[in-house]
């Protein structure tokens, strides 16, 4: 089959690789009809996430048709259309039983689990196409994918529903939803969202659905800010506006009740601390640039809530622990417990309560995936979401 493979920083290629096969009883093989490039794939593209190996197949947002099912899988049937959550969860361990699917203790193979235990204190959950810290599973930017524990994760899609309306159930929609849920929104609340990429945009939409009185969107790209404005957000462009002053003015000096870091480890900015982070990252002394998170913590009101859906992978410094403690902030974070939200969000899509297609800017054949990565990385203003079509032939 053809698949998008990683070979190093800014080096991804579409290559022919072996087809996957059923290995375990609960597996399924999915023939992929649509897959997307995620903002977190850019952290791999920029080689910020450790334990990548040359030849790894990327992609953790994908959907398609079930073409093969293991003998122990009593849920899926050949021919069903499914969206596959990026988190691989067994459904039976301590964490899955508590719907903390992104903490599943059984999906990361024992050979790789020890690495993340060294780095994070506990072994991480398995995930598709996201380094060997999360198991080294092949991703879904390919013709086919093997899905382990396929009787737990895959979301069966009713007939007649377009791929594009449900594809983002795999990651960015539940990630935005959980980010808003982590804000514990109360009536009258102002929620500020750093980053108007796909997760930030879905966080804005979710926060408004959850009853936030006002959502403030922070970004530097006019194209992305325009999408946030259409959703109903108030805009702050950090390219020409001091963010903390603007947020203080917009909230009468109180500060936002909840602040969301939807940027993660590669924050852009023009301030002194960001330059410091950038230099240290460039010489390999730190992995994570946390400019957005610092600003989140300083801007949030006393007793407020900080939600971090943005991905971090390692360590940082100049972390404003004093502001965090003295203001009594609550921090909630984590990879998304996708499976917890699948049914609810699918129903909201089918009921027309959530718009999932407004952020799609590009649709490309899989063969042009490297160009999709380049656009998403370098032309962020006009490239908000790239969908890849494995079954389409390349257009030359």
């Amino acid at each position, binding site marked *: *089959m053809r*698949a998008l*493979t990683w*070979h190093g920083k800014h080096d991804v*290629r579409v*290559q022919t*690789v*072996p*087809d*996957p*096969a059923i*290995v*375990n*009883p*609960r597996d399924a093989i999915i023939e992929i009809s649509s897959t997307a490039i995620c903002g977190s794939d850019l952290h791999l593209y920029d080689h910020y996430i450790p334990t990548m*190996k*040359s*030849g*790894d*197949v990327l992609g953790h947002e994908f959907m398609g048709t079930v073409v093969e099912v293991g003998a*122990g899988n009593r849920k899926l049937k050949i021919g069903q259309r499914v969206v596959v959550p990026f988190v691989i969860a*067994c*459904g*039976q*361990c*301590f964490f899955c*039983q508590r719907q903390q699917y992104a903490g599943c*203790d*059984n*999906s*990361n*193979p*024992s*050979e*790789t*689990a*020890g*690495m993340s*235990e*060294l780095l994070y204190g506990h*072994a991480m959950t*398995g995930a598709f196409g996201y380094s060997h810290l999360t*198991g*080294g*599973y*092949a991703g879904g930017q*390919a013709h086919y994918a*093997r899905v*382990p*524990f396929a009787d737990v994760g895959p979301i069966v899609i009713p007939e007649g529903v377009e791929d594009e309306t449900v594809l983002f159930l795999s990651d960015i929609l539940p990630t935005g939803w959980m980010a808003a849920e982590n804000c514990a929104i109360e009536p009258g609340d102002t929620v500020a969202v750093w980053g108007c990429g796909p997760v930030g945009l879905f966080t804005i939409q979710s926060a408004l659905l959850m009853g936030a009185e006002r959502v403030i969107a922070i970004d530097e790209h006019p194209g992305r800010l325009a999408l946030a404005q259409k959703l109903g957000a108030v805009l702050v462009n950090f390219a020409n506006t001091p963010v903390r002053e603007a947020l203080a003015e917009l909230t009468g000096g109180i500060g936002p009740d909840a602040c969301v870091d939807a940027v993660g480890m590669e924050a852009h900015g023009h301030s002194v601390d960001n330059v410091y982070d950038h230099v240290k990252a460039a010489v390999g002394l730190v992995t994570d640039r946390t400019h957005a998170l610092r600003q989140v913590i300083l801007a949030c009101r006393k007793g407020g809530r900080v939600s971090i859906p943005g991905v971090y992978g390692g360590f940082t410094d100049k972390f404003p622990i004093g502001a965090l403690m003295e203001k009594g902030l609550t921090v909630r974070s984590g990879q998304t417990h996708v499976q917890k939200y699948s049914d609810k969000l699918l129903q909201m899509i089918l009921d027309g309560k959530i718009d999932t297609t407004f952020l799609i800017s590009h649709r490309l054949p899989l063969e042009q995936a490297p160009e999709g990565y380049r656009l998403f990385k370098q032309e962020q203003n006009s490239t908000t979401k790239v969908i890849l079509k494995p079954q389409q032939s390349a257009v030359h």
Partner: protein
Amino acid sequence: MATEPVLTATTEAPLSVQHSSTEDGAASAEDTEGEVIGRSVTVDRPRSELYGFCRDFAHLSRFMAGVRRVEVLDSQHARWVVGDADELAVWDTEVVETRADALIAWRTVSGTELLHRAQLEFRDAAGGRGTVVTATISYEQTGGRVGEMLARLFHRDPRTRAYQDLRRFKQLMETGEVATAAPPNAAPRA
């Protein structure tokens, strides 16, 4: 290192336990000279089920890396076939102690230079979270030639092996299968 929680509930431990603090596989053969390696994992299944599964030694190869098969000779004896085509070893073991739903201990009796004792201990986890399983293995000698043989047979040091075997045991008992992303079938790659 915190070692106290593991054996405090045990009244007659045949082996003392020294906990490893790393699982990165960096330990050399010298590090394990005469050493006892123990590790614990919580498995969300009843003690009786886990004990029953492991009491049939034929099951052990399903989660112990490098063990090709274990043939049950009689209720107390088993023959282990370990390694791969490049390096194969066979040894016999006898059960030295069992306590129903609580402990299985065995030791090598013949056929190997890798003289060792091993045990699996099962205790109720606090808060109804299943069973804490502790695996302990003690080699009479692991340095030099024997240590090299261990490394060739298992491709990893004893501490890492105990950790990975227990994780696989947990996966198998909780989910019915062992997670894998081994290329090419389980995870194709270029």
